[in-house]
């Protein structure tokens, strides 16, 4: 159904925006490198494609005045979330542009800020991307890669803001009429299942639940082995 498709597209867009945000966090810091910028560019392009697809999907039914009631409310909700996501993406892209031009990699005007973050193959995107990245590194073009990248980014930022403006003009969804479905504690409900064991911990906690679990299992097995040995000794 169209709505499911839209939702899927929107989820994918949100995921890509979040990944882009994570990458943009490290621009200018110690994890900044050509690979990071390339990854940023790839994520950005992906996000833009998803955005264009989602926009095409959502605009048509919303402009159709025949649609009414529940369907329309649902689509408006999706639309509000979609344009909010695009705003976040645009803001992140602008910041990445500002930071990228302030901390150029090719002819570094100033040293990168040593923030303690070391990027690398463990970065967001997982191992599959890192393999691809290694393969690409051989074909790293020289010349003014920085300048080209920034000019492209600037163009994309302008394109995105044009798209947002266009969206606002074509479809009229006043924000105050949209009622979000999620309530105040909604992120806890499904997050409780997924975010449990691998949640980011505060520095003060010395013990790790996974490590504690492993230690408990190990000691149980050890005790069982000791009990068995004692029994064997007793019996023999």
């Amino acid at each position, binding site marked *: 159904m169209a709505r499911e498709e839209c939702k899927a597209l929107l989820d994918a867009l949100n995921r890509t925006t979040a990944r882009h945000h994570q990458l943009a966090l490290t621009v200018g810091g110690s994890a900044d490198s050509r690979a990071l910028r390339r990854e940023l560019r790839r994520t950005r392009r992906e996000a833009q494609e998803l955005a264009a697809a989602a926009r095409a999907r959502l605009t048509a039914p919303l402009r159709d005045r025949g649609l009414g009631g529940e369907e329309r409310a649902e689509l408006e909700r999706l639309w509000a979330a979609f344009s909010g996501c695009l705003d976040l993406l645009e*803001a992140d892209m602008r910041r990445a542009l500002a930071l990228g031009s302030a901390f150029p990699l090719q002819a570094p005007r100033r040293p990168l800020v040593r923030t303690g973050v070391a990027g690398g193959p463990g970065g967001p995107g997982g191992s599959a991307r890192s393999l691809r990245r290694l393969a690409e590194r051989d074909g790293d073009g020289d010349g003014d890669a920085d300048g080209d990248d920034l000019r492209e980014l600037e163009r994309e930022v302008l394109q995105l803001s044009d798209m947002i403006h266009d969206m606002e003009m074509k479809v009229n969804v006043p924000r105050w009429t949209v009622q979000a479905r999620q309530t105040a504690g909604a992120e806890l409900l499904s997050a409780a299942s997924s975010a449990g064991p691998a949640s980011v911990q505060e520095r003060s906690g010395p013990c790790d639940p996974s490590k504690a679990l492993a230690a408990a299992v190990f000691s149980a097995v050890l005790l069982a082995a000791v009990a068995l040995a004692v029994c064997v000794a007793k019996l023999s």
Partner: protein
Amino acid sequence: MAGGRAGAQLPHLSKMERVVVSMQDPDQGVKMRSQRLLITVIPHTVAGGDIAEWLIQKYCLSEEEALHLGTLLVQHGYLYPLRDPRSLVLRPDDTPYRFQTPYFWTSTLGPATELDYAIYLAKKNIRKQGALVGHEKEHYDQLHRKMNHAWDLVVVQAREQLRAAKQRRKGDRLVIACQERTYWLVNRPPPGIPSVLEQGPERSSCAAAGRAQLVRTPPADPLLPNVPLTAPCAPTPRPLLSPLASPTCCPGCKPRARSSTGRRWSAAGRRWPGPGSSPPSASRRECAGGPSPDPPSGASPPPCPGPALAPGTPPPRYLNFSSQRGPHDPFLSGCLPSNPWVTDDDTYWTVNAPSVAVPTKLRVERWGFSFQELLGDPVGRAHFLAFLGTEFSAENLSFWEACEELRYGGQAQVPALVDSVYQQFLAPGAARWVNVDSRTMESTLAGLRRPHRYVLDDAQLHIYMLMKKDSYPRFLKSAAYRDLLAVAVVPAEARRRAFPFLRKPPHPSPSPTLLPASTSAEPVTAASDPACGDRGT
């Protein structure tokens, strides 16, 4: 949309960033250590003592100054302490600190948006399994009410960002979490800690004039619901100095007087304001008292007013303005010879007419207050032109006048005017060639290919500044000006009549119902007594 608005780029931030960047130099920067946490080792830690030492060495400061500078860096979020994240001070011992990533620098992001804060709180909610406490819980509820329409996005983004973060290495995850936490500690400080990113009403686009009014209004009601998200003009307008504010400076405050006068200079230079320096204007009062976008925390002390200014007193700029202009104000110091509205004697107006042969003494004194005053007065401008003629730089003023005409003239005359100005003043062998520096000249000539009314702005500004800095002070010291002062007339005060009713009756102004003299006596009776008007007809 986040990202710097013009008013949010404060100059002290870029200076601090330069300091931080110079600390990163691999040879001459600060010594870095590593932090060891059980198994993970995170590099790029600095000790507070090392930072203080580096600052002392690099900038030749005393220890106290270095500590103060370091504390400022920590308070603005460029450095953060690792052990006790809430206490934002630089301790000159082994306390470990780390640098903040440039993404979270205040100048990159601009003022923090509500949406970002909502996402951060949602993430924290997930991490803490719903156990947000204190002011964060309040903020969360408030944001949920305010931003209900975007709550879907907030929840989804929070989850996705946590998921994206999980794919990093453990050390990186910890560092990024600390960075984010520091950023929000600086931008949404817990109650009781003054926010260093306070801009105060005088920093915003609304003039400082409103500030004198704000002193008396009481602080905003903390129980006010539904405060709108963005204020109409000021980026972060704050409730106001309460009468109980302590006059001592809080450590994070910066001297405001200097930058505000700096801004006034630039406003005067760029925008040719109305007569004189910026007078307090009533229209700006309503802007600066706008509602605060942050949830008002009643317990936080109000922002520091600057170097030891007692609450309720106007800033020194206003005192200077008032004392300088007091004698010139007709309400405060009376007008000579007499107030025409009272005595019906319009000598005052004839003596102060725009073009009069001999100006009054007060008027000539006013030319000494500011260059804008001099240029605004036709008599003053004429005398200044004569003076420039003796100095062989009269073409400057003529050029300036021609540019003004271009700016404010009709659209149809623009090309012709631009052409004539070019021929007269800017062409290489022109009769009255003005001396503009090469860069401005190049950009002007480039712009002349497509003339519009603002092409000559740069050149006009350059010449204006030249006149203001160079010729104007010389004019004030010149013999011509002193002669003018000596010759200026001081009209004598009109003799006060002892009995006001003995004054000759004021001229009856022609009644609007009076028809011209060709029609006869009827209108006179009609004017005098409407009740018996029918008698006349």
